[in-house]
């Protein structure tokens, strides 16, 4: 099934059978675990794995991995682009597959010192390159439903608090601080935190649906 832009906030994925295969073009698959040591290849600490290269193949995740998801959604995006696709599950999935394959792209022929080749008439000299992407996502809803949503986020690699979770999927919380810089604490010494909806993060956005989904 080809993914099209869904209506806001998200649309139900209609399909027959026990799974749906989606045509995708992503680089980073996120399964939120809340812990950098759980599912390090898939958790939201994506900037700690930014140097990893996708290997061609078909991969299957079962309950052994998916049990560590703490939120009922997954996300897929290409850090070089500005669109983040997310999929909401009404029941925590017990199986998930994805396929990594090469996509042909055209790139400029460039020498080692950065000079771009052009033809004698001034056109770019393009060569075909292969780049590995997650080209297919196979979702198994189990006894539940799956919804598809999409948000636009200008910089999918921005990490303003340097916690290795990009802002687009971060869960910001702020200490309540008075004008002179002192942080409020409760009577038992805990920080008085608050969160704002208006930070563009998909995590913050979907938290408000936590009681519904």
């Amino acid at each position, binding site marked *: 099934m080809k993914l099209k832009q869904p*209506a*806001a*906030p998200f649309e139900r994925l209609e399909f027959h059978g026990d799974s749906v295969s989606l045509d995708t073009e992503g680089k980073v698959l996120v399964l939120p675990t809340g812990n950098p040591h759980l599912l390090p290849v898939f958790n939201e600490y994506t900037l700690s794995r930014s140097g990893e290269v996708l290997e061609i193949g078909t991969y299957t995740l079962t309950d052994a991995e998916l049990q560590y998801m703490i939120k009922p959604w997954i996300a897929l995006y290409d850090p070089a682009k500005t669109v983040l696709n997310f999929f909401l599950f009404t029941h925590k999935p017990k199986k998930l597959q994805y396929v990594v394959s090469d996509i042909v792209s055209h790139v400029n022929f460039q020498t080692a010192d950065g000079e771009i080749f052009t033809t004698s008439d001034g056109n770019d000299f393009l060569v075909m390159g292969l780049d590995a992407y997650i080209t297919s996502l196979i979702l198994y809803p189990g006894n539940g439903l799956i919804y598809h949503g999409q*948000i*636009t986020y200008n910089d999918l690699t921005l990490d303003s608090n340097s916690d290795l979770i990009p802002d687009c999927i971060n869960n910001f919380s702020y200490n309540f601080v008075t004008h002179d810089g002192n942080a409020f604490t409760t009577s038992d010494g805990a920080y008085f935190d608050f969160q704002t909806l*208006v930070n*563009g993060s998909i995590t913050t*956005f979907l938290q408000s649906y936590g009681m519904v989904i």
Partner: protein
Amino acid sequence: MSFQNIIPINAVAVDAGATNDPVSVKMDASLNEIIIYIKNLGASTNLTVLVESSPDGTIKAPLQTVTLGTTTTTVSIPVSVVPAFLIFTATNGDSSNATTYSVIISKRA
């Protein structure tokens, strides 16, 4: 039939590092499907606009959140079921650059 545009927010300023008060837009009851366009007109590298739906202008539920910059300046949001009110809240996460933004609602008339 033709397309018509409503521009409820036209080049409204958002100061650097500031969050604007929510802007509530009452929708025409005859509308069914619309596309919301949001455009960052200025130099902010991190402008987040939260779009919420509301039945009465007070109770709010998030509809979409978008974050724009200077390379991704425009976004379109299709809405298949138009609510009674749309509420827009803009936050400029760029502490150095003020900006302005517009909201255009495209409908089939």
